[in-house]
Each structure stands twice: as C-alpha cells, then as structure tokens.
C-alpha cells in the first residue's frame, strides 16, 4: 500500500469511529439543529416584527446567520470530542501505533463536516417550513453548499486545534464558546450599518460577515460579487491555520 492509501485507510477507520459516536450519542446532532432552530423561531417571530430589513422579509435575511450559529455549535462539539480523546488517553494509544499521524484528527474533521452539513440541511428545512423562500438557481445552490462545506471544514480544523491545545473537555467547551458569540457580532442577524461605528470596525471586517452576506445573496438568487472571494479567502486561511495549529499541538503533546 502507498502512503496515501494507508492514510485513507486510517482516516476512514477514524471517521467510522466518529460517525458511530454521533449515532450513539445523537444529542450532539440534535442540539446542533435544535439550538439554531429555536433561535430562528425566536428571532423571526419574537423580534422579527420589530426588525426592519430594507427590501425583504427578515427571515430571508436571518437564515444565513442561523447557519453560522449551527457552525459555531459544531466548533464546540468537535473541540470537546477531540479534548475528550486526549483526556481519556485513547489518542495516546493511537500514537503508539504505526498509523498515519493525523488520521485521528482527519476523522474528527470529516465527521464534524458531515454532521454540520446534515444540521445545516435540517435547519434550512425548518426555515422553509416557517416561511423562508430561497430563490437560488441550481448553480447558486451549489455555491451555498460549497461555501457552507468550506466554512464547516475550516471551523472543524480550528476546533481540532482548540481541542488539542486545551486538552480538557471543559476547557475546550469554554474556549469554543467564543465561536457561538461571533455570529452576533457580525452582519449575520442585523446589517452592520445599524451598529455604532466602533463596533462596525470589527463586525464589518470579521469573517462571519462576508460569509453571511455571500450565502444571503446566493440564496436570494443574486450575485454576491467580490464578497464571495473575501468569504472564501477567510475560510481557506482559517482552515490552514487550524490545520497547522492542530498538527503543532499534536506534535507538541507527543514530545513531552
């Protein structure tokens, strides 16, 4: 077997493990759908009447933000899962075996991505049930899928790095909690122009804002323009940094 097929073999064993965890412990998946769904209903029915978005229904504005919320939840779940593996010692067992070095992380990342995509699809279905009417064409749907997957992939590597760096489930959950706040400090729920200037400086320039705008434009059948490239660039940068950080934390734990 070549190095690549070995890596694929090991990663797929690890992915099967993570997927089994998800089916054994469905709470993770349910929460990643339930929390965004509750927020969707709360914001749309509770506050939606008071929030005026120029040129459209609030729910059409809101859905990309809800998708980001779900992604934020997925960071937490993945970081906790990786940290649990460390604290329970199973990563040490894997490290005494002649297997591909990052297979266990790849398994977590791909598992997190698949979980996130299922969660996103369910959240969108709930949104449609309460009045969300996307008008995207197939090509734009492909764009929505692609960007969502890329974002979930990036966020999963960041989550793996957090899980490895903290090493305890409680620490990982605390740190990853920051990612659940990020969508609120962006243009995901309300336009950044409505925020005070000092806050805008952050909210308009953090990655969640271009990602939400791009998804919103695609779902509405519009053209996102250059914002899409900003969103993709952010995702690629986060994926790369997360991957490098995770590998470094993994190696550092090995050298002790």
């Amino acid at each position, binding site marked *: *077997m070549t190095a690549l097929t070995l890596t694929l*073999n090991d990663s797929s064993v690890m992915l099967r*493990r993570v997927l*089994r965890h998800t089916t054994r412990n469905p709470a993770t998946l349910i929460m990643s759908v339930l929390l965004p769904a509750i927020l969707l209903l709360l914001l749309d029915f509770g506050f939606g009447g008071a929030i005026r978005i120029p040129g459209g229904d609030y729910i059409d504005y809101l859905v990309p933000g809800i998708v980001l919320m779900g992604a934020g939840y997925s960071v937490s779940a993945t970081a906790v899962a990786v940290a649990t593996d460390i604290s*329970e*010692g199973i990563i040490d067992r894997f*490290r005494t075996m002649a*297997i591909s070095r990052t297979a266990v992380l790849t398994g977590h990342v791909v598992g997190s991505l698949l979980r996130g995509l299922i969660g996103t699809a369910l959240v969108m279905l709930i949104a449609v049930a309460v009045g969300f009417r996307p008008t995207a064409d197939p090509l734009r749907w492909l764009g929505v899928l692609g960007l969502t997957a890329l974002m979930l992939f990036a966020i999963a590597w960041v989550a793996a790095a957090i899980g490895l760096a903290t090493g305890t489930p409680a620490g990982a959950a605390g740190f990853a909690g920051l990612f659940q706040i990020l969508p609120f400090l962006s243009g995901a729920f309300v336009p950044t122009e409505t925020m005070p200037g000092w806050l805008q400086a952050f909210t308009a320039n953090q990655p969640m804002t271009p990602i939400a705008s791009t998804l919103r434009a695609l779902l509405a059948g519009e053209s996102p323009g250059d914002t899409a490239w900003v969103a993709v660039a952010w995702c690629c940068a986060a994926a790369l940094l997360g991957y490098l950080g995770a590998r470094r934390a993994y190696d550092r734990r090995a050298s002790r």
Partner: protein
Amino acid sequence: MSDPPAISVAGLRKAYGEHTVLDGVDLDVAAGSVFCLLGPNGAGKTTMVRIMTTLARADAGQVRVAGHDVAEEPDAVRAAIGVTGQFSAVDKLLTGEENLVMMGGLHRLAGAETRRRTARLLARFDLEDAARRPVATYSGGMVRRLDLAMSLIGEPRVLFLDEPTAGLDPRSRRTMWQVAGDLAAGGVTVFLTTQYLEEADELADRIALLDHGRLVAEGTPDELKRLVSGGHVSLRFPDEASLAAAVSAVGGLPADRDALTLRIPSDGSVASVKTLLGRLDEQAINVKTLSIHTPDLDDVFLALTGRAPDQAPDHGPDHGPDHTSDHGPDQEEAATP
C-alpha cells in the same frame, strides 16, 4: 542468549524542567522474557514506558525496542509493540467488539482476519457476553481486559503493560497474570511495571528496581531476595511503654512509634521466636500481635532504598505499614493512606 535483546536501554535520561525523572538508566530485556520494572509511585516507571513506546522523547541515551531506535524509527517500533497503559485507552461510546474491529482496521488487517482475531480475543478475555454492549456499561475489570485485548490484536512482539493490575479485583488480576504468562510462553517479550512485589515475584523472569530515576538493583527474583540476609519478626505492642521496654530489652533497634511496632531480624525459626518471646516475657513486656516475615522483595526494597515500596518517596521510613509474609496487593492498597 545469542538473540539480540528485545529491549535495550543505555544511559537514558529525562527531566521535566528542573525535575529529573530518569537519571541514567541502563537495562536489557531478553526476547521472550517477562521483565518487571518495580518501583514506588513517582519513581519514573511510567516515564520509561512512555519513552520506550515512542510517546515521549528521551533527553539523552539510547533506547532500542524490537531492534529499532525509538527516536530514529518510531514507526518501526510502533509496528512491533502493544501498549496497555495505566489509564484504559478504550473508546467508551463504542462496544467492545467495535473497539477491537477498529484496532484491526488500524492494523490494516483484512476484514475476515479482524473478525477471526476479535472473536478469539473476546473469548479469551471472557467478554463474549458483553461484546455488543457499549464499553461505558463495563466494569473496571472488563474495561482493563478489553484494553489488553486491543493491545494484542496486532500480535505484538513486545508488549508493554504499565501497572496493568492497579485497582483490579483479584479475579481480573489473575486473568492478567495468566495472559502475561501465556504470551511470554508464546515468545512475546513482556515489559511490565508494577508497585506490587507479589506481582513481580509471580510473573517476572527478571526484575529491576527503579527508585528516584535510577535502577538500584536488577536480577532474578531469587537473586534479589538473596541480597537481603534474612527475614524479621514484627511485634506490635498495646502501648508506648511496652514498646519502649521492648526496645531496650532487644538492644535499641529503631521502632515505629506511630504503629507501635518493632522489627527484629530473625530467620523465622520456631526456636529463635521462642527465645525472643522468652526474653520479653522475663521482663513482663506485653506483646499484642506477632508476625513472622520471611525475606521477600519488600525486604530487598527496604534494604536498598530505606523505604517500604508502597510509599511515596517523600515519606519517611517510619510510616511503613505492617509487613506480613502473605501480604497481597489488596493489603498493600489498604495500607496506603
């Protein structure tokens, strides 16, 4: 003895910051033998295992396992070893069977071969009934047995067992011992760490005593026992006055005032014990209990390190538990505060 050793360690050093954990360790383990590294908590046993199993790097020295240098060819070492650590590294959300199948997959075994070995290991470790239950529902002993089974699915040539029976019930402990013995009989080299002298005595072909990061003795169990000249009689007194009187009667041996005990060197023969008791009787000294202690590894440890083996290194020599010749790990545990 012409075979190269399965494990060879030379000049091994490891420090964490200012704290030296291993301070120049040398040892060789013959292929197919059971080698036991014995030492108290904090002696550096786990650190040694972590270095030999490629989990940690040595600061200095050379470590070869199964013919490969652990620092230069870690993957070749990993392919030859199985490791069962102190803390069970099993996946609690999976079933026992799924854990074994996962390990088979990581050893790149064919599906049929994985299933064959899984079934055999489940039977061998008495886990067939629990095979399809999540590990979270297992007892501590079952988890440990599964952990060992997972280490064996790749049929390792060298097996590391880091305190494999710590906290186990006697039945699971017997199973572990049985398996370790069988593996060695089948040509597997077993490297075992333990705090239990009984365990080392029972299993090991050779024993090394590790204390403060140095090997203080190495040899067969019998060789080590020969290091101490004889056993002792341990006397326990009802009060301090009796203890003090006894100390002066037998000629000023150091006593354990907290436990109200006195150890007197003795060969354990009836005649010598009679003489001793007669002398105490003459002075009307009241003795509460007496135990006769034939030389065992406890004595070796005491003689070489000045401490009983189940004490943390920073405890003084005067707080040891009572020693009786038939003590087992259970008593050891109970005696540790």
